[in-house]
């Protein structure tokens, strides 16, 4: 399995999803995947997912890319995540199929 890539997974407040994707788009990140209904618990308390009162729901964004691109993505998301809370992790993977 050639084609080593990095997988970045971001979990943050749902309210910030629009900003996060704008950031990725503006920086020409070629692809990402979003899951909108994500709950959880962290240092900022319980996100039990009740939509109407805002601030209790997360989103999940995954970016698969080369190691250099991963560095760029890490850099651009850090300030936003510092502001919005949440977390991001990176791990190794390989393409099976990619257009």
């Amino acid at each position, binding site marked *: 399995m050639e084609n080593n890539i990095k997988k970045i997974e971001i979990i943050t*407040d749902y*309210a*910030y999803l629009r*900003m996060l994707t704008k950031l990725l788009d503006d920086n020409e990140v070629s692809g990402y995947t979003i899951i909108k*209904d994500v709950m959880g618990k962290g240092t*900022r*308390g*319980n996100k*039990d*997912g*009740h*939509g*109407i*009162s*805002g*601030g*209790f*729901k997360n989103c999940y964004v995954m970016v698969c890319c080369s190691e250099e691109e991963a560095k760029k993505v890490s850099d651009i998301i850090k300030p936003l995540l510092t*502001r*919005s*809370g949440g977390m991001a992790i990176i791990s190794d993977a390989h393409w099976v199929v990619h257009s």
Partner: protein
Amino acid sequence: MESILYNFFAPPVPFFFLGIIAILAHSDLEIPEQISKFISLYLLMAIGFKGGVELHASGMNTQVALVLFFAILMAIVIPLYSFFILKRKLSPANAAALAASFGSVSAVTFITASNFFSTSIAKPGGEMVAAMALMESPAIIIGVWMYRKYKKVDMGTQSNRSHSDFKEIFKEAFLNGSVVVLLGSLVIGLISNEHGQEIMAPFIGAIFKGMLSFFLLDMGIVAGKRIKALREAGFFVIAFGILMPLVNATIGFLIAYLCNFSGPNMFMFMVLCASASYIAVPAAMRIAIPDANPGIYVPVALAITFPFNIIAGLPLYYYITELIHPEILIQAKDAVEAIVGH
């Protein structure tokens, strides 16, 4: 007094308590999230459209202008004095977010209050819905402005993005989904002809109370969940959540009295001043003041002020309104008799 209890042993209110009880008893009852959002949009659409139609009927007159003027004024003044009270015990971020909540309004409290007139001939005018729509956003701006002024930390990093941020905040304040639906439906109601009103009547009228019951069940569930977070908030904040509505309602009452608002309008104006936002404001605050703790400002508005208003506030404001405008009670009774038939 009767007419108050009257509203208490009838849907939609008891469903709120059913929701709280279910959660406190550890039931797994939950309303799917998208359904909550749907019903919330439905309620805003219905109340907005209805208000627009009524506003169209009444037209622009002095009472309407006064109501709208004082509504905006209260939405600016309440968060200001709330902030200075709250700042004594809370961080600027939390104080600002909570102040913004109280300066804004709760559409569901407003709608539940409208129930008091559902069988009555005297009804609040469409201008009250317009007032509600106008009161949603200003408090958000005030809250953010206070926060910016009084927070001390990281001025360096902040200042260079404060400009772009303000655009964002205006967007959050005035283009929040619920504000847009409420205002948009108001305008559509305003321009709608009789045909349009007939068309919408069953959707916004007949099933409205049932949908509200369902939504209050959900509100009860969420309030039940948030109650636990109140320990975190502390006594000061809880006391604020109960006393502030009374203070705001009193000021609202004085304005309504001095400006000679009609009975139903007086009552509804008190309700608007007394209620606190737990939908539009928290959504904006997450972006505008991320340092503020939603574990504080949401539970106070949702699990303290909302139930307080529903249980004690509305009857009290109604009772006070009756003292000045006894006709609203009589009309309500007449209407009931007319409907029930004896």
